[in-house]
């Protein structure tokens, strides 16, 4: 469904993303993990059209969208959330979500009805009339999700929707994400919470220092030498193996 091939992004001297390739199969939940500063959000921004890559192509449903503006990608069915939540502070929750819903209907009443439904789906049903600025962090994360969902996306890009949530809040959000996939939305998610990644993802990509160092099933990727060393430092994989052998 989404093919981002050989993407490279340079910020003057800094090579943020270096020849990274990611394929997202239709109907899957694909994870993108990596240490802080690996370039995950930059890669996301290129896929969503907020940054243009120095090299490489982005293909969505077999159409090249590399140079396309973000709002046109949204109309194609590519929605994103932001790692740092970006609510429309002066609008209430319902109208925040309605901005997303207006993508498919110009009828204000219909858009607000869809917004209400979407809010209920993510568990914001009782906060519809609250100003977005009055929501807790968990509420704002849900709002990000609801707003993106209201655009009726085919592919949803989630940038750390679970970050900053406590364990019980995470437990509440996981089924929502699974439910979204059940309804036919493909998901690509950046996530640090490994519990969530192992739980949800079919495939995981690992980005480190701008390079894609591993991909595959979550369980296999977690035991990959390169991945362990990217997180824990050089030689860590060997040490862990040695310790494991000693325990055995």
């Amino acid at each position: 469904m989404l093919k981002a091939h050989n993407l490279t992004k340079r910020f003057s001297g800094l090579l943020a993303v270096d020849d990274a390739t990611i394929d997202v199969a239709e109907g899957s939940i694909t994870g993108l993990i990596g240490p802080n500063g690996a370039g995950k959000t930059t890669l996301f921004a290129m896929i969503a059209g907020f940054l243009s890559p120095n090299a490489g192509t982005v293909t969505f449903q077999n159409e090249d969208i590399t140079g396309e503006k973000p709002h046109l990608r949204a109309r194609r069915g590519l929605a994103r959330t932001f790692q740092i939540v970006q609510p429309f502070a002066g609008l209430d929750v319902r109208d925040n979500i309605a901005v997303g819903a207006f993508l498919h209907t110009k009828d204000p009443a219909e858009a607000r009805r869809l917004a209400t439904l979407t809010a209920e789906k993510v568990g914001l049903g009782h906060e519809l009339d609250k100003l977005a600025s009055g929501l807790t962090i968990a509420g704002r994360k849900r709002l990000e999700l609801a707003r993106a969902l209201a655009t009726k996306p085919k592919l949803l890009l989630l940038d750390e929707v679970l970050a900053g949530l406590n364990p019980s809040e995470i437990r509440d959000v996981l089924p929502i994400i699974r439910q979204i996939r059940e309804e036919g939305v493909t998901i690509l998610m950046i996530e640090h919470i490994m519990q969530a990644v192992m739980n949800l993802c079919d495939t995981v990509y690992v980005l480190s220092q701008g390079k894609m160092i591993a991909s595959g099933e979550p369980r296999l990727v977690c035991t990959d030498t390169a991945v362990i060393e990217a997180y824990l430092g050089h030689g860590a994989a060997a040490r862990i193996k040695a310790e494991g052998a000693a325990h055995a």
Partner: protein
Amino acid sequence: MKKNFEFIAALAFLGVVGIAAIAGLPGNILNLLIFMMIIALTAQGWNVLGGYGGLSSFGHAAFFGTGAYTTTILQTSFGINAWVGLVCGVILGAAVGAMIGFLSFRAGLKGSYFALITLAFAEVLRILANSWDFTGGAAGMMVSINNGFAYLQFSDRRWFLLILIGFVAGGLLLTRWLERSAFGAYLIALRENDQAAQALGVDIFKIKMQAITLSAAITALAGCLYVQNFLFIDANVAYGSWISIEALFAAIVGGAGTMLGPLIGSVLLLGLGEITKSFSGGIAGVDLVVFGIILILCVAFAPNGIRGFVADLWYRRKSRGKAM
């Protein structure tokens, strides 16, 4: 519900003013009300772009003046009907808005950069109008006196006030539509966060262009009506920064980005200004001192304008009532 209440209250206020005018008001009060309505309409125009869109223009004089000059020139130099002149003035004002918008939004200008560029455009137009022959140069232009509906001039000024009240009510209606429509939601969304708006499929360039065109059209209409009332225009009146400041001042003091803000702001500011003038015994500029004090008070205590301040009080009183 509350929005409905505000809308009806505003219409009722305009209705009362209209009825009072018909019943008979002293000439100076009538003149003040006419001026209030012209400023309210100018500020309603500013409010679309600056209030809802968060793009604060310092140069709405560019649109006001274009409307005013267009209708004046068409009437005096070409003998064209005042109403046709008014329509042309609105169209040309909107076109100037679209042009300024295209140049600044394509470059992604916002905040103080946008404010400065609009100020610069208005100043350029002022200087040009001051030197060109067909705008009458520094001497300005006069619209000849022809009373009658077709000329949009009335020997009985009450009729003119009623027409103005009609336009301001139209402005309220437009704002009310704006607050509910997809266009309005997109406009507020890009004010609050343009990146998030884009991610939701909002073509922010297109929405900004539509907003500045609409905003300019309303302000140009106010400019046309200004000329029909005062029958004289020169570059410093039409394109002077005074009108840019009146526009944003009335909207901000009243409550930028609210339906009632521009009307509240213009009535309050001009009303207080007039009261001060009549009590100060003719000390020149004392009303401007009052303006300054109001601005300081607003910035300190009512950052959301009078409308926001009153709404806050109302909400607090209600929630306290519930608690007890």
